[in-house]
């Protein structure tokens, strides 16, 4: 399924497929291996200090959710829900690159995250 195996101890530093987004860069989005993701908190979810991230297209929603959970230092028991367009929760194995192609705007994919179900 996913190309990279996930190690639970992986930190932000060790994770080259998710990096702080650089300043807006030009170029055809098809050629870029990474896409820009903007993370927005919903409800009582903690707000990420860094909201904009550069993520490899092949990264799954699940691995992004795990990254956010670790970054926010959530308890293992705390769930994280990710939403696109404030309307649907993508499947955990969905690739962020596909979501960006279909639901990205202004060169980025906006994802809302929360600790409880927001949009059902």
């Amino acid at each position, binding site marked *: 399924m996913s190309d990279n195996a996930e190690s639970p101890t992986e930190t932000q530093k060790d994770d080259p497929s998710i990096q702080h987004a650089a300043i807006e860069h030009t170029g055809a989005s098809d050629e870029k291996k990474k896409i820009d993701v903007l993370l927005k908190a919903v409800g009582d979810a903690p707000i990420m200090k860094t909201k904009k991230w550069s993520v490899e297209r092949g990264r799954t929603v699940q691995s992004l959710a795990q990254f956010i959970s670790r970054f926010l230092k959530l308890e293992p028991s705390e769930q994280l829900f990710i939403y*696109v*367009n404030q*309307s*649907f929760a*993508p499947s955990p*194995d*969905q*690739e962020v690159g*596909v979501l960006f192609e*279909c639901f990205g705007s202004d060169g980025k994919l906006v994802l809302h995250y929360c600790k409880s179900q927001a949009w059902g």
Partner: protein
Amino acid sequence: MADDKDVLRDVWFGRIPACFTLSPEETTEREAEPYYLLLPRVSYLTLVTDKVKKHFLRVMKAEDVEEMWFEYEGTPLKWHYPIGVLFDLHASNTALPWNVSVHFKNFPEHDLLHCPSNSVIEAHFMSCIKEADALKHKSQVINDMQKKDHKQLWMGLQNDKFDQFWAMNRKLMEYPINEGGFRYIPFRIYQTMSDRPFIQKLFRPVSPEGHALTLGDLLKELFPAAICVEDEPKRFQVMIHGIEPLLETPIQWLSEHLSHPDNFLHISIIPAPSD
């Protein structure tokens, strides 16, 4: 002459005869007989296999039983893909019944999602419908529906009730009169030998000049290898619900009539048989 509505029924009631055999890796108290079942193409494995589970649990010890999962010729079957898609992709050119292996241990975490209850299937199904409507109508139609309407879509699928389902689903198949169709077509193109799960991109059903675009137009843009060139043998079959629609078929019509209940047009591209 078949009515378009007949197509909706044919799609809904499509079935695949399957034979479920317990994997030889499983430990049993006595020999397990295979279990035969007609699977609805438009449903999901974990939703329709309670009887399979009951059948095999009879010959197993409770301590040897974890979450049930399915595999075909070594490939774990993703329960969150519609059954018909799994069959077309992996077994469409093999003899029936579809021989599926049943497992109760060594759950392949990297290949499959867990499915602890029907509410997980419901959540997945509804998310797909919402994603499809985001593409078709900017989510306007699904958002205008009430929670009980959403529930009706799920109950229709779960209980195999065509009329109950389509009483609601027809609203998701409408579009403004002045438009030629949906804003974008919800579709996914699957292949067995691929590094990515599927291809999904924005695709309008009508060209800027106002022409209705076809299945062939979609493939030309996203999978040109599937369009066979004159004099060359056909390399791929383009399969939807077990058939190969003509490439001239308007994509808007396909979306309205051959989508799955999740409102996505699932297209399997498989190698053409070599005989």
